[in-house]
């Protein structure tokens, strides 16, 4: 629990989350024993490689995993357990108090329905708003997220909007019912710099205005600087480091976190002959053996890393890292 959040209620408390899919050679675990929490009104950043289980964790929170997925652990949202059997309550919370902006706005919007119809349906379903009022509120929300001529946009179909506009519509849709927690899964991945900065500013101001807590999922650490209160780093389905944003940027402990920071091209650098990257590839699903999943790509790896898996443990200085030989 973070010092700055001490004494404030937890909005979200995830303990030992597991997500697995049936595979030919036994279950394939894509999220393994992940724990994290979000204090009311605060922003948690989740950063990690593609395939590290960020989206699967979010979908588990939203109850949107495919039927064949096996989910274990505990997800408490404002004190209520969302993973309990027959949690009908969970269904009514999701979409209203707990809303999500998806990584892929194309598949999240229904292609053959006008934007206005889709926004209106959210209000009708969750709040029972009538059509005329829904239209007014939808238009207002579009203005709020920086879309001009909202009345005209409400009559358009998703394919008639640019990628950036679609993502704004998604944010508007998620915020319509005034959620307590907004999950944003890579909300600015495909946007240009100017709009990315605007969308991040938009998320920041929406969070303050609506008093929402936020989980911002990204693979871009630079995006989290100045926005996240705490950051959780995931690799191969596990949390490998967890720290306040300030600590993490100033002194990354896990070699993967340090590598990620080094990969961000700096404006001040002279054009390089090569771009920096972490060698190798992230492990595929289920490909992890007994040792540290990062070992094949880690410059600090030693024999011990291949034999025993480092546990995520709090250290004397209060930092949490899962590594046998962390950076000093």
């Amino acid at each position, binding site marked *: 629990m973070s010092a700055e959040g001490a004494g404030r209620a937890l909005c979200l408390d995830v303990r030992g989350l597991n997500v697995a899919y049936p595979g030919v050679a036994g279950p394939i675990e894509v999220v393994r024993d992940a724990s994290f929490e979000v204090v009311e009104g605060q922003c948690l950043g989740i950063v990690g490689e*593609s395939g590290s289980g960020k989206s699967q964790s979010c979908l588990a929170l939203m109850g949107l995993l495919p039927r064949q997925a096996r989910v274990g652990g505990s997800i408490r949202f404002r004190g209520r357990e969302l993973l309990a059997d027959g949690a009908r309550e969970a269904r009514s919370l999701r979409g209203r108090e707990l809303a999500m902006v998806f990584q892929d706005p194309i598949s999240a919007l229904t292609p053959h329905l006008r934007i206005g119809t889709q926004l209106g349906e959210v209000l009708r379903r969750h709040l029972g708003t009538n059509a005329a009022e829904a239209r007014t509120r939808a238009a207002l929300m579009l203005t709020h997220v920086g879309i001009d001529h909202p009345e005209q946009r409400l009559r358009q179909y998703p394919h*008639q909007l640019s990628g950036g506009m679609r993502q704004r519509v998604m944010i508007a849709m998620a915020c319509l019912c005034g959620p307590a927690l907004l999950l944003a899964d890579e909300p600015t991945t495909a946007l240009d*710099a100017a709009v990315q900065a605007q969308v991040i500013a938009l998320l920041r101001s929406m969070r303050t205005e609506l008093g929402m807590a936020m989980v911002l999922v990204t693979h871009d650490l630079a995006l989290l600087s100045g926005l996240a209160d705490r950051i959780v780093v995931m690799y191969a389905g596990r949390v490998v480091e967890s720290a306040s944003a300030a600590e993490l940027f100033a002194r990354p402990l896990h070699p*993967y976190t340090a590598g990620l920071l080094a*990969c961000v091209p700096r*404006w001040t650098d002279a054009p390089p002959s*090569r771009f920096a*990257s972490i060698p190798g590839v992230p492990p595929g699903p289920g490909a992890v053996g007994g040792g540290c999943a990062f070992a094949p790509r880690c410059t600090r790896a030693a024999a011990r890393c291949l034999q025993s898996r480092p546990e995520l443990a709090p250290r004397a200085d209060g930092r949490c890292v899962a590594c046998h030989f962390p950076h000093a």
Partner: protein
Amino acid sequence: MLESDPVLEVRGLCVRHAAREGGRPSRAALADVNLQLGAGEMVGLVGESGSGKSTLVRAVARLLPAEAGEVRVLGLNWLRLHGRALREQRRHLQLVFQDPLASLNPRMSVGEALSEPLRAFHPRMGAPERREAVAVMLERVGLSAADASRYPRLFSGGQCQRIAIARAMIAKPRILICDEPVSSLDVSIRGQILNLLLDLQRDAGTSMLFISHDLAVVRHLCRRTYVLLAGRIVDEGPTAELFARPHHPYTLELLAAAPRLGG
């Protein structure tokens, strides 16, 4: 300007999206766009969301009709090509899109998806040779040969984009147009893919039009850059010069908005 004849030349391109039902025709999405890509050149195209970058890509790829203007691909009047001539010329112009999932057929295994361009453009290649080429390409973009038998839905977004890049590159096109090719990839492997694009360009002499919102990457990758604003090219020049001394106030604005680590 260019030292040799351009491999891709866009002249006075105008595109207007279909009118909304019952409404007036919409404003032009692209107005009088001129752009050149030299042999083996890496050229950047930047601009805010909605400025028309993807519209330009789609028009050049003939996925959208042009209202006016001309596109020349390796000297041929590309927008007027039909039938066999069009199919043959297509081999030289390949694309990588912004949205990796939309560009892959969910019912095709990765191996089939990568074999498709080989079948189309190298019909005499035998099946074992094709399998080998697919395996080599997959490893080159950071996947494994064993992934050939898997389907796109089993991969995360970033993994899908690597497959799309492999698919575009496997038939060794002369021109590759990349619409935000690495923006959905992991920061940790973006460098590998960018280095791969650099290698490809050097080895095969591929020319690349590189669309990106990441000005730091464009600055490091592209020799020349165009700036698009509301469907018009408003600024262009050698990238280093352009970013150091932008001519147009909009370029300045884009530069100011670029996220900086620790900022």
